[in-house]
């Protein structure tokens, strides 16, 4: 049975490729976690299992920077942007999908166009606006200029287009207004769209570095990504352990969310053409 053996060899090769791939992607994270738990003397050794586990690197990190503050700031930043986006882009998406009004098509075209504007064009004028409005070093300055995205409008519009008209008509006959229809009927049946927009939006500000770097100057107000960057770039006298500790703190919340909602993460990012 040469075919059977051939098949087994083929399968074996496939598994080798897949496992090699998994090691390539997962091992660096293990290495990061390990470095944060090793003693400074052992950080540079290549052993896969350290002789001693210590929290010294975390202690050093907590002494130097307000990590919990940073985490909280990140949650406030990413959470606010997500909430604002969910509320207002679903409203625009619903109007663009189901209501007739003048300028609807123009607005939709403009919205599609804005998806092509890179942030690098906006960042200088936005920075100047933030300075002029005296929003420097404030959450208003950090959040408002990036508080909505065209992708949200687009995803909600596409999803609302698929809802049967009878459902909306029935609600209208019962005397429901458009706001009620949107928030009481459309949103509850649009969980996939809500989850997609929420995940995509949340990951943006959580992982963002460039915009906080421009707006926030006071360490107490910085999101953790920015705090970690400045902490790391100071060098810490070759304290890679503590840099990996703050890295772990920054990566962990998203990774935990990802492990719970893996399928949604992959579907939402995969279907939208956006990177994290």
């Amino acid at each position: 049975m040469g075919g059977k053996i051939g098949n087994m060899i083929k399968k074996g090769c496939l598994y080798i490729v897949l496992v090699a791939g998994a090691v390539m992607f997962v091992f660096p994270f293990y290495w990061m976690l390990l470095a944060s738990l090793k003693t400074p003397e052992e950080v540079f050794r290549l052993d896969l299992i350290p002789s001693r586990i210590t929290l010294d690197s975390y202690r050093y990190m907590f002494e130097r920077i307000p990590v919990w503050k940073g985490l909280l700031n990140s949650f406030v930043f990413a959470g606010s942007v997500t909430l604002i986006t969910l509320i207002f882009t679903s409203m625009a998406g619903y109007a663009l999908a189901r209501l007739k009004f003048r300028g609807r098509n123009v607005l939709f075209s403009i919205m599609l166009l804005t998806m092509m504007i890179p942030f690098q064009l906006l960042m200088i004028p936005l920075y100047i606006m933030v300075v002029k409005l005296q929003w420097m070093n404030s959450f208003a300055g950090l959040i408002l200029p990036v508080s909505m995205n065209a992708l949200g409008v687009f995803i909600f519009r596409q999803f609302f287009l698929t809802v049967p008209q009878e459902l909306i008509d029935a609600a209208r006959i019962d005397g429901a207004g458009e706001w009620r229809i949107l928030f009481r009927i459309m949103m509850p049946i649009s969980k996939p769209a809500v989850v997609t927009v929420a995940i995509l939006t949340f990951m943006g500000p959580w992982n963002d570095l460039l915009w906080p770097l421009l707006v926030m100057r006071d360490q107490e107000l910085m999101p953790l990504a920015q705090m970690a960057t400045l902490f790391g770039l100071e060098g810490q006298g070759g304290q890679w352990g503590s840099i990996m500790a703050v890295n772990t703190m920054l990566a962990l919340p998203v990774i935990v969310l990802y492990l719970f909602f893996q399928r949604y993460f992959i579907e939402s990012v995969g279907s939208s053409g956006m990177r994290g």
Partner: protein
Amino acid sequence: MKGKRAGYWLVLPYVVFLLVFMAYPVLFSVWLTFHDWNLVSPEIPFVGLENYERLLNDDLFFKSLWNTLRFILINIPLQIGLALILAVALNQPLKGRGFFRGAYFLPVVTSGVVISFLWAWMLSTDDGLINGLLQKAGLHPVPWLTSEAWAMPSLAWVAAWKNLGYYVVIFLAGLQSIPKQLYEAARIDGATSLQCFFRITIPMLNPAMLLVVILSTINGFQLFTEPYIMTGGGPANSSLSVVMYIYKNAFQSLDMGYAATIGLVLALIILGVSMIQKRLLEKDVTY
């Protein structure tokens, strides 16, 4: 009509956002390119096309553009080659596909900050993991981030590593949309696996391939976090990206007009790439 009024109210917040934080900044940006401003001076003199002239004579700008192109040219084959191999392997009926797909996607959801520091450490010349392994294998250590020759290729590798899982998902979707009958027909005609791969799989994956090329190109032009953290643009500006150069001009030299000019040129390049993408993708949908 009642629906009409509601429509206006519903889009109002988003329209306000568009006007204040998109339309106005774009116009402001264009206006800035004709002016010279250090952000603090009360006067903002009009300088005509001076900023554009300066751009055309600015070796460092062209260097940053060339660096970015180099990054893209190394990044794309890496992305396509590795993502294709992993996607084809994942497309076979095997156990644990969900696990592997999940593992490959992990770097995609992780912050670029985390990944930059992690790889900066693993690639460091004296005490990094990679050079440690090379030395164990009897090879010489490589100055991955500290030599002009290696800095940009190293960043291209790190970016490829971060986004590979995402491209695997795109390729996987492309592979699954290829009709099984094509392979069956080819088998009956006596085609080998390799022939099937090059005559059916690759041509049918063209739209996905194109998407990967365009997305990596757009991402490449926006390169910032990796060089900012891993190399600071060095050594000798060999890994200075266009966005880093904008950042330096705007926020270290406070040269707002000039920085806006580079920003506008970069935006036009990206817009051009996006337009080509739209054209090509629209054409490809109807195969």
